[in-house]
């Protein structure tokens, strides 16, 4: 059974078409290829679906990196 971190990485991988061995902590909104505002909303939707949560709008705007995503998911009990 995949860990929560595996599942989080899988969502990011699918959203941005990333390889398995990505440097996760280097993923930054606006800098990582393909991570624009349109892809961001798709990423949020995918995260909400994957973990069955609803992310607060302020956190949607605040989710500027993979590391930040981990922090925000932790608020919903998704500790990776």
């Amino acid at each position, binding site marked *: 059974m995949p860990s929560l971190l595996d599942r989080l990485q899988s969502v990011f991988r699918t959203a941005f078409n990333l390889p398995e061995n990505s440097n996760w902590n280097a993923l930054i909104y606006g800098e990582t290829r393909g991570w624009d505002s349109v892809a961001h909303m798709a990423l949020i*939707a995918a995260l909400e*679906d994957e973990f069955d949560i*609803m992310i*607060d*709008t302020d956190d949607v705007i605040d989710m500027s990196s993979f590391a930040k995503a981990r922090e925000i998911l932790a608020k919903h009990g998704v500790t990776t």
Partner: protein
Amino acid sequence: MISLEGRVCLVTGSTRGIGWATAAKFASAGARVILNARGADGALEERRAELEAATGREVYAIAADAGDPRQIKALYGQIFETFRRLDVLVNNAGVMRDARLGMVTQELVASVWSVNVTGALLHLQEASRLMSRGKSGSIINLSSIIGRVGFAGQTVYGASKAAIIGMTLAAAKELAAKNIRVNAVAPGFIDTDLTRALDPAKRDAVIHSIGMGRAGSADDVAGGILFLASDLASYVTGQILGIDGGMVV
């Protein structure tokens, strides 16, 4: 008979007038209706019980002030917790405060804008996110004939209702790919508590300007909203539906 069977439908500002008529029509069409209004009095719960008794269907009520962003977010949090989805939003909550241009204060502008524009936008934002999860939805915003053609003494209200039109057109384009339809209705002179309080001579003059020779009813408007919410309007988005009996302002 138009069916909204099983659809989760939020109608803001739904304890009276157009909102209430819409909620009643939706419940009769089989929707799972969520009533909403400010929670300052018991009207919301009374209306919920009244609609349940009338339709025999479970009706929900969640208090939230359309002028308070935190309450709007909490409202959608509750909808998510309870239903995990939203199919229809009727963005109806609004305020009308008239003033001649020279008497418009910053306070008046802020109070109208916070509900009619910012509140409506936040509802649109939150609702569209829930609808995205279900990959479909219908949002109906309440504009007004005043937002299209203007009326003396209603500069602020008219501007706020014109903003609703711009919001509707832009959101319709952005959300079409997600199968979320966004439309607006622009009611004309509707028989509500507000318009009944008008001076009789002024009221007669307004009715004289209506092609069909009568004020509209809240039910007239609710019918148009029901159509836009339903599958009959499945290919309709980005439209502003005038419901005004041929009124000329």
